[in-house]
């Protein structure tokens, strides 16, 4: 099953674009599921149907097109709870669909969502160790003092195994070649700036982007109107800028329609306009990924980090992990055993690729 995430700053038309892709793919004969993981759901509004958040069964909205809004109120902890539910549904639908489109929360939270498996599998392990340590030590006494019994170690063991397996599986799934992220932008400065940051952050976690969708472009006829002339020119400039910054990613052009795009038929037509001759389910660009390479007496770790800035980049090595921080995001990249024993001898950022050299310290 092809898995495509749509992300972008809130309000850029992410949900509409995701739904249009899904509707068009379904019209092209792909069995398609569109999922919304945005806590402020609007997928139902865009499709023109009422999606019941109480169910985890997708609603058939058109031939070959199912939709589901992930419930965000099932637990006290809406964010993580919702994601768990969504993961479950994702795995359950394996095999039924050719294509799964995920309409994510705005950029910041989306990164949380997609980076969660990695962070969480480490965090869960840690948390469980802490709780287990406390519970093993405290329980015998606590049972006497505290009326509420603390859970025994066997409970933690089960949760540990369950969560770990599920999250590890998802992480693997996200790294597969048929998973991509598409960033939706509008021709606005703030939106583009955030998209650039998001692209770096996604790359840090090895999530491959395969396209950028430039939304709400004024068609020639609209840009010809006096008031909108300068906006039209500005849009042309921004489009060129986005094409250059994000190259080699293709930039798909989504025209502003004459009215709000609502309902499956309108969405499918909008999707056809966005993709022109391209296949909405295809991997539109194969981006380079993290690579370990052998050099003269040393190893190189090559991590593509498009648009990363040197002054906002931090690299360190700790035991079996390489720590990389870009701006506000950071990641511990696990190293193969052979490399874990080596020391950090150098790092450089060149043409959007971070190269870290590991060798025997002199």
């Amino acid at each position, binding site marked *: 099953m092809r898995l495509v995430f749509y992300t972008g*700053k*809130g*309000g*850029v038309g992410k*949900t*509409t674009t995701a739904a249009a892709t899904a509707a068009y793919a379904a019209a092209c004969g792909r069995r398609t599921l569109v999922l919304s993981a*945005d*806590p*402020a759901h609007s997928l139902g*509004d*865009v499709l023109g149907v009422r999606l019941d958040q109480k169910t985890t069964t997708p609603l058939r909205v058109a031939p070959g097109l199912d939709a589901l809004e992930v419930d*965000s109120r099932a637990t*006290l*902890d*809406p*964010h*993580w709870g919702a994601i768990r539910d969504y993961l479950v549904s994702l795995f359950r639908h394996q095999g039924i669909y050719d294509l799964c489109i995920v309409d994510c*929360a*705005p*950029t910041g*939270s989306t990164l949380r969502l997609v980076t969660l498996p990695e*962070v969480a599998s*480490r*965090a869960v392990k*840690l*948390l469980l*160790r*802490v709780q287990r*340590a*406390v519970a093993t*030590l*405290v329980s015998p*006494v*606590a049972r006497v*003092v*505290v009326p*509420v019994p603390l859970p025994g170690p066997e409970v933690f063991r089960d949760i540990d195994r369950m969560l770990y397996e599920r999250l590890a599986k998802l992480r693997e799934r996200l790294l597969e070649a048929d998973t991509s992220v598409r960033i939706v932008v*509008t021709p*606005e*400065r*703030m*939106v583009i*700036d955030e998209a650039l940051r998001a692209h770096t952050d996604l790359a840090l976690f090895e999530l491959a982007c395969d396209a950028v969708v430039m939304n709400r472009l*004024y068609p020639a*006829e*609209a840009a010809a*109107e*006096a*008031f909108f002339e300068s906006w039209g020119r*500005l849009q042309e400039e921004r489009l060129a800028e986005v094409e250059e910054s994000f190259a080699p990613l293709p930039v798909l052009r989504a025209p502003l329609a*004459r*009215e*709000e795009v*609502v309902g499956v038929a309108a969405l499918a037509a909008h999707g056809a306009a966005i993709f022109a001759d391209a296949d909405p389910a295809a991997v539109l660009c194969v981006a380079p990924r993290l690579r370990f390479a052998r050099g003269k007496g040393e190893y190189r770790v090559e991590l593509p980090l498009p648009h990363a800035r040197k002054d906002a980049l931090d690299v360190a090595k*700790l*035991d*079996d*992990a390489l720590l990389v921080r870009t701006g*506000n995001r950071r990641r*511990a990249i696990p190293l193969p055993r052979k490399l874990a024993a080596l020391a950090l001898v150098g790092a450089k950022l060149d043409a959007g690729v971070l190269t870290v050299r590991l060798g025997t310290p002199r």
Partner: protein
Amino acid sequence: MRVVLLTGKGGVGKTTLSAATALGAAAHGHRVFLLSTDPAHSVGDALGRPVGGRPVEVAPNVVAQEIAVLDEIERSWAPIQAWLRQLLREGADELVAEEILVFPGLEELVALRAIREVEALGDFDTCVVDCAPTGSTLRMLRFPDALAVFMGGLFDMERRAARIVKPILDRIGVHGLVPGDEVFAAFERLVRDVDDVRQILLDGDRTTARLVTNAARVVVDETRRSFAYLSLYGVATDAVLVNRLLPPTAQDGFFAKWVAREQTEIAALESAFGVPLLRAGLRPAEPIGPDALRALAREVYGDRDPAAILHHGRPLRWRRVGAKTLLEIALPNVSKEEIEVAVHGADLHLRVRDARRAIALPDSLVGRVIEGAQLRGATLVVTW
């Protein structure tokens, strides 16, 4: 200190209008702090100059800051992290120890705590807050209730247990595994911070929210939802700001249907809230930099002081009528079927669609049965 929270679906121009509100208030003689709590900071983009984690003067009488959440957390959670680290003793997992403490909702909380710090500076009479997009803002508002329950229950229990266990463990030589008092103290500080932030947010005499919206259906629907939720959580909304309205000249060309749609949506907005509806037209170019933002503020607020409370209305009110106690909650734009009311212990649990809230009951009502709950117009009345 007056606190103005600007929130709304992302991309509607919330940051631009926050910056405009701050500059407009300064033009009315206020000393203004402009605070961005949206993790995707863009205040700098709107002002056309860099703004970072440290307060920086961006115009006369306007200081701006983008909260660096990770740094803030590091600062206030040091004892807890130290404890976790001691447990781990593996360097590589330090990162995780930090990550784990950034539990959902904490980022927003830490960000909002900055409001209190601005107030403590004493140099500002107005704080304009550019909040995260609607979803997270609402989560954050619910958070104080959830945290109190969580902390109150869990940590009291563990602490009592730890007090008794720790001396024994110390004697037999197991150190560091049971959190010391400084860890609990850090948690308690957090609970207190939460409480302070909540006091500020719920004080309708100084804090109001402004919802930024566009006249497009999907956005308007969400704005109506947000309005109901804010009111449910007890935050007063004093204005709705409709941004980027198409110019009158657009009604004859390509944008004709968009203009017609806008008019329908404006009509819906006007009847929906009962608070002033302020408008900003689409500009011929992006409003970036102080001058453009001041002009925008003049268009939105006219002669009004952007720092003033533009509408007075109490979203939540307790009343005594004879032997009965009434709780009135303004809940516009919801229907009876979307509301659930129940008493759990000392709290009234209220659910409106997918938002929940626990309202602490006055002592006199704890243990008493609700006589009824009725939706009268746009007001939910719960009677004991």
